Each structure stands twice: as C-alpha cells, then as structure tokens.
C-alpha cells in the first residue's frame, strides 16, 4: 500500500507560473519575503551535534557545508567539501514538534500561536508525514483545534533531496524523494561549478507571489535537467529498501512469528522511535489541580502530551495493561506503523525517513525486520 495520501484538489496548479531559478545568495530575499508577511520562520540549524529544527533568522543560520552520516544507531555531522545549504537529510526533529507540540494545555484553552509558521526545508518524506497526520487530526469525524490552528496557515518551503541518507527508504514507501504536493514553494539546490543556485517551483498562488519578490530568472533546460539528475541521484543512493510486498497482509498474518521474540531481545522499549517518527501521534491527557496546576488557587487544568505505545500504561485496562511483554509492544508499534494504520486511516503510517533506524540505540532496522519475517513466513 502506498504511503502517499491522495493529493488535495483545487490548488489551481494549472494557473501557476513555471519554475524559476535564483542564486544561492538570494535565498535571504525569499526568507525575508516570507517573514514580511508575518510568518515565524523555522528550519534546520545545528544544535547539540545534530541538525534540528529551530527558529531561523536568515540563511546564515542554515547548516552550510554540513552533511549527516546516518546508519542504524548512528548519527554524525560531517563537513562537506562544498557549501550546500541543504546538503543533509533529516535529523531527530520533525515538523510535528510545531504542528502537534509535545505539550499543550487543553483547558483552560491556550490561545493559538501569535504567528503562523513557515517551515523552511521540508523534505518530501516530511510532506507525506504531514499529510498522514492531517488525516489523523483533521480527517475523522472530529478535528483537533490545536493542530488545525497551527496547520491551516502554515507556509511550506520544501526542499528536494539531491542525495539520500544512510537510513532513507522513501522510494520504497512512495514518499519521495521529489516533493509533488503539499508545498507552497519547492526548492532544488543545484551546485554546479561556481553556480550555486536554486530551482524553485511554486505549488500555490501565495508561493508564486512570494517568488515575485525574489530576484529570479526563468528556469532553462540545463536547470531542470540538473534538478532531475539530483533527484535521480537521490533515488539511486537510498540507504535502505523496504521489501516490495503487501506489508499489511504480511504483518497481519504473522502476529505469532518467532522474529518478534528476536527483536524483543534487542528492543529496550525506550520509545525513541516514537519520538522521532514524524507520524507517531499518540498522546495522553492529564488532569491536574492544586500545586501541580499553574492556575490561580490551584484550579484544575488539562494537559496533553506525547505518549508512546512502548509505555506500560498505554494499553492499560482495569486490572493491568493488555501489552505487557516487550515483544507485544514492539510488535504493536511496527504492525501499527506498517499495517494496521492502513485499516485505521487508509494509508501507511511510514514514509521511509529512516529516523527510527538512526535513533534506535539498539540499531533495530524496521526494513530488516520486515525482510526477516517475509523470508520465513
């Protein structure tokens, strides 16, 4: 089952102008144009030895000339031999930290953020992940107003990867590497000899408008050719592959497979995967009063915070949790992500970003686990 939710209709793409090109030193013109419209810019910056998402002042805040080396349980920053501004893949953060913050006060209701967000540097896998979370928080019988408030006006500048990471497998999940929907502007960074430039495509009317405030020229065949080559290079350099199978049928038929015992012996149930995964959405609601409340007189408050299916409390019914063993909790996470998510929401929950592989301290690789089950089922 393909990961990508169906494209939203009616963006009037037929009416949008064709791609343009601007020089890398004009990137600030783009960022300023966005900022002038009242957006809060957030994007990749180096912090704590990783490329994280944080407030962005200008293009100089971007990790120029840096890349990330990723593998199972491995993440290192390394200097590049060029000055690419987006020459890396994805780090431990995902955009859910802004759309679905780790902590929110439900009651008394928090005011919406002062400024809408502009996400700078969103990868195709991340666009797919946002669309997946849109289905959870906005696509059911009820909508989450917190998510809706942050999502509705968010401005998205996507970046097409020119190179895949060591744990990437977006191609297998049909979630990239090229952004095809859900963005206002999509950039492809082109590093020709002495011609560091960006190919920019408008995905919405407001994206096209903003591009008119940047010094651009129309894109020519050399530019679009270089962009295609960059995408092709990303496709060819994927670090991982998810087996091309009906994952839903495979996993739902193998809940008693011995491989679950094997992975359980390695899994620490630390929940890192659920925190870094851009689609994980479980949350818990807590009621507090008295000293734990920040309301006057200790009046009651309700909070929402990220939860993880790896906790013992997650499946609690009176008497105890349903999923006690490590085995059952790992199985829950993986089968939900790849299989039962499809039953529940109509798409896969996985976009092939590889974060769960990189940030697992035990180096558990979801693609390897699937292959092992498939080999012997």
């Amino acid at each position, binding site marked *: 089952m393909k990961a990508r939710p169906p494209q939203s209709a009616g963006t009037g793409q037929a009416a949008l102008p064709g791609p343009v090109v601007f020089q890398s030193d004009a990137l600030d013109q783009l960022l300023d144009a966005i900022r002038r419209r009242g957006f809060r810019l957030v994007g990749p910056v180096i912090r704590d030895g990783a490329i994280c998402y944080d407030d962005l002042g200008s293009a100089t805040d971007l990790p120029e000339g840096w890349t990330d080396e990723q593998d199972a349980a491995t993440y290192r920053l390394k200097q590049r031999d060029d000055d690419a501004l987006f020459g890396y893949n994805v780090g431990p953060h995902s955009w859910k930290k802004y759309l679905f913050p780790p902590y929110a006060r439900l009651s008394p209701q928090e005011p919406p953020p002062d400024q809408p967000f502009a996400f700078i540097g969103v990868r195709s896998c991340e666009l797919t992940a946002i669309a997946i979370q849109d289905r959870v928080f906005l696509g059911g019988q009820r909508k989450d107003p917190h998510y809706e408030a942050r999502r509705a006006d968010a401005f998205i500048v996507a970046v097409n990867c020119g190179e895949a990471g060591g744990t990437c497998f977006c191609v297998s999940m049909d979630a990239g590497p090229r952004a095809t929907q859900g963005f206002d502007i999509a950039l492809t960074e082109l590093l020709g000899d002495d011609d560091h430039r960006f190919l920019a495509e408008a995905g919405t009317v407001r994206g096209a408008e903003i591009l008119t405030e940047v010094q651009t020229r129309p894109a020519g065949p050399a530019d679009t050719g270089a962009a295609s080559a960059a995408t092709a290079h990303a496709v060819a350099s994927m670090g991982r592959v998810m087996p091309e199978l009906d994952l839903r049928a495979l996993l739902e038929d193998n809940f008693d497979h011995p491989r679950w015992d094997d992975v359980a012996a390695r899994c620490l149930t630390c929940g890192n995967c659920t925190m870094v995964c851009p689609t994980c959405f479980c949350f818990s609601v807590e009621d507090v009063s008295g000293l734990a409340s920040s309301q006057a007189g200790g009046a*009651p408050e309700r909070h929402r915070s990220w939860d993880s299916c790896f906790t013992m409390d997650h499946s*609690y019914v009176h008497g105890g949790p349903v999923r006690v063993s490590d085995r059952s909790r790992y199985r829950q996470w993986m089968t939900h992500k790849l299989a*039962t998510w499809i039953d529940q929401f109509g798409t896969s929950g996985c976009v092939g970003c590889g974060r769960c592989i990189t940030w697992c301290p035990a180096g558990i690789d979801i693609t390897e686990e699937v292959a092992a089950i498939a080999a012997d089922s």
Partner: protein
Amino acid sequence: MRAVTDTQPREPRPVAPWIEPQSWQVTAVRLEAPGVVTLDLTPPGPFEFLPGQFNMLYQPGVGEVPISISSSPADSSHVLHTIRDVGPVTKALCALQPGDRVGVRGPYGTSWPVAAAEGGDLVVVAGGIGLPPLRPALYQVLSSRGRFGRVTVLYGARTPDDLLFADELSAWRGRFDMDVTVTVDAADSGWHGNVGVVPDLIKRAAFDPDATTALVVGPEIMIRFTVRALGAAGVTDDRVYVSMERNMQCAVAMCGHCQLGPFLVCRDGPVFSYRKLARWLGIREV
C-alpha cells in the same frame, strides 16, 4: 451515528468536545452492589444516543473515563451510567451526590444491531458489569416487542450480592414474553437460584439458532466461553455481537490508546460483530 428525530434540527457538534465537556447535573445516585453505583444524570439540553454507546464522564482535576449509557434511549432526561469503582476517577464518580455536577461529552461509539435483529430471536448474555450496556438494547426491544421472536436474557455474576438491577430482572422474569435466567459463580444456601457459569445456561435456553442474534458483554474470558457455547448451540459468530473494552481516552479516534489490532475501539466499537474480531481475540497481548 446519532439517531435524529424528524422534528428537531441536529445540534452542531462542538469542534473540540474533549476540551469542553458539558456540565450535567446528578439527579439521583443508587448503590447497585458493593463498589457499583448508578448515576442518574440530567443533560442541560436535548440528548440522543443509541443502545451500546458510551459517554465520557469528567471530574475536573481528577480525569475522565468512558462509561456505557445504561438507560432507555427513549428517556433523554434521565441518562443512567453504571460505574464500578476501580480507580481515582471512578472512585470520585461513585462518591457523587444528587445536586453535584459532572462533565459529560458524547455519545460515542457503535451501537447494538437492534433493528437488524428484528424478525428473529434475541439472546442477551451478560456477565458482571456487562449488564448495564445491554439494558438500553433490551428497553428498545421491549418497546417494539412484537417485532422480535423469543427474547432470552442470561446473566451471571460472582455472587448474589453482585447481581445488578435485581428488581428489574425479577420484573422481566415475570413477563411471559421474556426468558430471564440468572446464575452466580458461588453462593451460600440462602440463594435459591442457579449456581454455575453463564455459558452453561446457553444449552438450556430455547431459541432458534438459525434466526438468532446474540449480544454478549462481560469479561473477555467469559465472552470466549460464551461464544463457544453459542457456536455449539448452532449460532454462528456473524450473528454474535460483543462490546469490547480498551483504554479509551479521547473517544474521538485521535489519541491512539484504544487500538485493538486494526480497530480503534472508540470509533469501530465498542460494539463489534464477533466474526470481525475473532482472529484478533485469539492472539495474546494485541
């Protein structure tokens, strides 16, 4: 899915119901059995629900829990909720007095297939705290009794003191158009009723297995034994419906806690056709 009357327009749903529960009044409180209380709540406005659905009951500063509605759908001013004291929120709810207020949001979830069961026999099997979620279905059946064949109620509890709605069950047993049998796991000789397990009552009950719908609520072990006994009596599992319990917190298919394999119990349940569930109930720790 809420039932809508012809004369009243639908109320717009609040966008974020779990943030703003409505304040309902506690009209009456009844102690049913040790640790089990029925709250009679009055909504501030019109309220409709289908048998099998549940409300989220909220005590500020303590928390929120899902409780099945246990009254007749025809009575919207006295909405009953039968609660067992098993934790801090239910304890707080069980301690409420008439005049107190409760935060309520709902109704949520799927409902018993009462209309689909018309024209055939109905077997209702309840264990312990499983009787309250079935009462609304029984009331609905009794309000159009002529549309159903034999109606059988089989109810089991741990001991005679744990039987809920005992007076009502006696009254139902007195009717000529209902077979009501009650059993307990253990009793002293002051009890003149049955001692034994609920599934064993099925083979003694009279119903046409080819035209019977069975509604079952109780602990999961009891459900599995009951479904087996129904199967042995000829009722196939596509005619058996159960109400499942999982950790429902948001009740709006967003928080992820109530997952049961491919199902979200708050949205795809709590009432399920057993056939849909069967393979998942056979896997441990799902």
